[in-house]
């Protein structure tokens, strides 16, 4: 065993990126001068040297099979000298200095079922997470909702007819692996039923003091239940964050009747114009309605189109709402404003309207 360890390398890190750069990129590294969007999903970067680099961006499902990767490789070999990259939103990008390759490549991609687009004032892929495909914590599926929503919004991926960029993200639980907290539109899986406690096994799989401490609202108290040392949950103090479940598997929250999806709007990450912003609650709850989550796709489309129709050029969702004010947003979107929209967490007071700047 000790021997095995010795011949085994560790901590050698990822391969150096340089070997993966197309020659034109290597030659013009750090020398790019400007770019132009040529058409949907295609841009050209021009170097100080005059060299040109065409980028074709195609949708990828993110959850992809090795055979699909091999198909990508075939295309990359055919058009891009064997190089390919992926983006921070999980699209695939084909880079080539050869303008003449662009159209055939696009054709091949479309034939494979991979729409080209997402560049410029468009909707790009939905950053998302595991959902029912892999995570124990999920309050909704990820890939399914994303597929349904993007099928519906595909025109906004393939064309550039929006006032600005619109970023959608999905996380299947409050852990927010999809980092939806700063998205123009965020789709967030939520639980709405307190944990159901597996009293018989709790003590075996969890440490009770850690468990009690994990609850941000102090809803969990040690208790002897049915003869087992366990815990009890003060249900009216539970806000379904599932932090208890993360530290203790005997506290599951998932529940078919009460799990679902909430929609948040107006976040952004870039520093362009407005500083980065968090997304804010728009629609508190929509049911899980697989396989196509029609309530969710409709809600998202309505929000996209409301924004598209009313925002000024370059105005992201949050910038638009900030200009018109939240009361107008609720009126225009037809979303009912409810008690749950009002913050009651730590800094709640700072979200109250402390001025008379109102529209009527």
């Amino acid at each position: 065993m000790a021997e095995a360890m010795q011949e085994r390398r560790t901590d050698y890190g990822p391969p150096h990126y340089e070997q993966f750069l197309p020659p034109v990129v290597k030659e013009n590294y750090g020398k790019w001068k400007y770019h132009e969007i040529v058409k949907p999903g295609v841009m050209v970067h021009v170097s100080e040297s005059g060299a040109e680099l065409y980028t074709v961006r195609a949708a990828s499902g993110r959850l992809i099979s090795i055979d699909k990767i091999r198909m990508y490789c075939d295309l990359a070999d055919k058009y891009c000298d064997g190089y390919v990259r992926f983006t921070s939103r999980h699209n695939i990008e084909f880079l080539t200095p050869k303008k003449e390759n662009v159209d055939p490549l696009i054709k091949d991609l479309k034939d494979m079922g991979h729409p080209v687009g997402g560049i410029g004032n468009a909707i790009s892929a939905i950053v998302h997470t595991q959902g029912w495909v892999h995570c124990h914590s999920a309050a909704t599926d990820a890939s399914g909702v994303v597929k349904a929503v993007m099928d519906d919004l595909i025109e906004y991926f393939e064309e550039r007819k929006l006032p600005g960029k619109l970023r959608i993200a999905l996380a299947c639980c409050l852990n927010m692996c999809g980092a939806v907290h700063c998205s123009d539109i965020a789709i967030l899986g939520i639980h709405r039923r307190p944990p159901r406690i597996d009293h018989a096994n709790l003590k075996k799989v969890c440490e009770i003091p850690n468990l009690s401490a994990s609850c941000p609202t102090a809803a969990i108290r040690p208790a002897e239940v049915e003869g087992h040392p366990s815990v009890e949950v003060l249900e009216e103090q539970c806000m379904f964050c599932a932090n208890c479940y993360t530290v203790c598997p005997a506290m599951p929250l998932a529940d078919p009747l009460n799990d679902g999806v909430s929609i948040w709007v107006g976040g952004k990450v870039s520093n362009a114009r407005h500083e980065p912003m968090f997304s804010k609650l728009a629609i508190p709850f929509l049911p899980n309605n697989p396989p196509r989550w029609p309530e969710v796709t409709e809600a998202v489309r309505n929000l996209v189109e409301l924004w598209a129709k009313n925002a000024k050029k370059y105005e992201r969702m949050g910038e638009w709402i900030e200009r018109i004010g939240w009361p107008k947003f609720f009126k225009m979107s037809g979303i009912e404003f409810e008690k749950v929209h009002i913050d009651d967490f730590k800094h709640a007071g700072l979200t109250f309207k402390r001025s008379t700047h109102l529209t009527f």
Partner: protein
Amino acid sequence: MADKLPNTPKLDELEKGKWPSFVKEIKMAAKKSPMCADLLGQLEKSYTEKVGYWKHGGIVGVMGYGGGVIGRYSALPKEFPNVSHFHTMRVNQPAGWYYNTEALRKICDIWEKHGSGITNLHGSTGDLVLLGTRTEELEPIFDELQKINFDIGGSGSDVRTPSCCCGQSRCEWACYDTMAACHDFTMEYQDELHRPAFPYKFKFKFSGCPNDCVASIARSDMSLIGTWRDSIQQDDAEVKAYVDGGLDIEEDVISRCPGKCMAWDGKKLEIDNSFCRRCMHCINVMPKALRPGKDRGATILLGSKAPIVEGALLSSVLIPFIKMEAPYQELKDIIERIWDVWSEEGKNRERVGEFIQRVGMGNFLEAIEVEPVAEMVAHPRENPYIFYEEFFEEDDDEEGDKG
């Protein structure tokens, strides 16, 4: 008595300069009042030693009232015997701080007889503050005040003396009659004003428009600020006259508009009133050309206060728009409910703004039976920590509403 004035080289410095000198005032009063002479002495000592010499007040007051007098005693009664007692009396000012000289002179006469002869016109809550008297003078003063129909203001955990901007009496922008409302509320809540029964103080301030000339959004538990619901009244000829007169309308008006809802095409000003935030700026700059709309009322906000001890607060919107017409019944009903809930569940020394933050605005609204509306928040919640109060059980109808 002038010859008896103490030696006050430091204070004397403050007799110089163009701004009215409080030292001159105290000296003027000291001609008649030995209290003021000792006040000068003690103050000069403060100026030398860089520390105050007043003691915490005990409870003093007039019979039947629980507030209105601030007890104050010198910490150096041997050295300054005439300020051994130095209580202030808060006299409820008339709405808008208007007086006739007859009334003012009578107050002066009372104060010459029974007090130090110095005053604050006014205290920062708005009272006419009579500054410095002895315990045994309190009843006689109140006796005389009664005769001239001046009553005492608030102190302690009660309604504090309400105040208001001059409003319709002199200002073209007043969207409701602030002085009438201030007087009405003051009369309505005489009992609450004079007999502390709350967890802490409760202040009302009435401003006629969003310029908020009594700082009500920063300094009152309930802020009543005039506003309008329809469109700004616009006189295009006068707009043009301002521009012709040299106003840089693009830079000074349009680019400063927080609603970003104005446009000027060189001839006519367009205001998209549906996005106007009622900030007053354009009206302030062009009072002859623009005026608040005709459908007027007030925005009611709750909860501002100074920082002790949870941090300062500005008031936040409770009612986006309400008509302000006597007897203001709808509003008073809400106020009753607010006081009930707060008195019941508020902690000692917890202002209503702090109380709302502690129990949550949603819960507070439920308790006072007011519907939540989007105007109450700057923005909806950013965190996903929602307390749903009900959940479906397995045997519920899947289609049914929660709860």
